[in-house]
């Protein structure tokens, strides 16, 4: 299990912007001179990262919206860890 404290609040790193790109049909993360195309689950998780909600709240929300997905809490935690390692997000 991931070591993240669920009370932490994830926030996009300064200069990173998350948005939907119709031409590419996916969410992307934009940053200085770069762009990361996100798959559906990464897009769904980052859409919840608003600098207000805690990890716990995000997990609760996504679990309620996708009740059929097994192990969703673990997936979210793993993704957030990776996103932090890559310096896309920070925790407050």
């Amino acid at each position, binding site marked *: 299990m991931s070591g993240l404290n669920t009370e932490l609040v994830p926030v996009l790193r300064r200069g990173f912007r998350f948005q939907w790109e119709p031409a590419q049909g996916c969410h992307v993360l934009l*940053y200085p001179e770069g762009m990361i195309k996100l798959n559906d689950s990464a897009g769904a998780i980052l859409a919840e990262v608003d600098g207000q909600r805690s990890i716990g709240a995000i997990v609760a929300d996504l679990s309620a919206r996708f009740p059929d997905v097994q192990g969703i809490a673990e997936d979210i935690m793993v993704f957030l860890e990776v996103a932090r390692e890559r310096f896309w997000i920070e925790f407050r």
Partner: protein
Amino acid sequence: MNDSGSSFAKPGHIPGPPLWLLAELTYRCPLQCPYCSNPLDFAKQSEELTTAQWIEVFRQARELGAAQLGFSGGEPLVRQDLTELIRAARELGYYTNLITSGIGLSEERIAEFAEAGLDHIQISFQAADEEVNNLLAGSSKAFAQKLAMARAVKKHGYPMVLNFVTHRHNIDNIERIIELCIELEADFVELATCQFYGWAELNRAGLLPTKAQLERAERITNEWRAKLAAQGHPCKLIFVTPDYYEERPKACMNGWGSLFLDITPDGTALPCHSAKMLPVQFPKVTEHSLKHIWYDSFGFNRYRGDDWMPEPCRSCDEKDRDFGGCRCQAFMLTGDADNADPVCGKSQHHGLILDARRQAEEAPKGLDELTHRNVHASQLICKS
């Protein structure tokens, strides 16, 4: 706008959208870098698109799918309408990047751009070499200005990319350069050995570092990367080597007309910012829609796919990886843009690259022998 007329689209080759739009707003610039990538004859090209024309370009490119927009030049700060252009681009949904030398920047303008929605400012330490040396010696007003602006950029909440163009006369100071960038809290640092186009090609003998210089610089950069990683430091160091020390060419622009769309000050659309030198006719945004330009124009289809390749590329199993390298480099060095990029060890012209390496070892040119990019030199070189 005229969209009628023939399409040069290649059957079976449908390009993706132009994700990157580079707006070269002007060729005007207060500096005279001897490695400037602007065309040698920039002095002959003083025409510039109007504010409304630029905004229309942004709108059309965004519609095609462009997400990143770079304001560059010349020095984009000399455009009095820059704030207006930033605001329009941001409203269209672009991630907006200002690529500047920092000369002409002030804290008021930084704040004004932020309010207009500018996402990021890249300060290029692209000054004349004596100034670079002054920087490293810790003096000089121009550098005091750059340093002050770098601090102001961070203060106003932007992410910051610092770009250092390195060459044989400053690359040995790489450690100082990295330390300075960390001190300034840069988020990304580009340590880019100058690429040999435009003025840099003219000055190559005075700029190309030796292999030993490069290896040392790369080793130091790697040591710093390890140090930063160990501290969990978010600063990312990007090291760009000149392809003159490679045996295979770079996959130039990720393929001709595949991602990147450059618009020059007068509205000429190019698949890369040095392509204007090629004997290829490129369309203008004042005459055609960007959709036509990207998908159907002759210029943008000229080197798509691989049916244009002669040997050795034609029968090479690596052609999907590097697309035969850079067309501009092939043209500059061999006189024929269809040829394999001479960086490739399989090219019959690879000897030119070996000669340049030898020259870097044995007969380099001094700092005082560089031709500086200015109107006078441009007119002299391009007198026709």
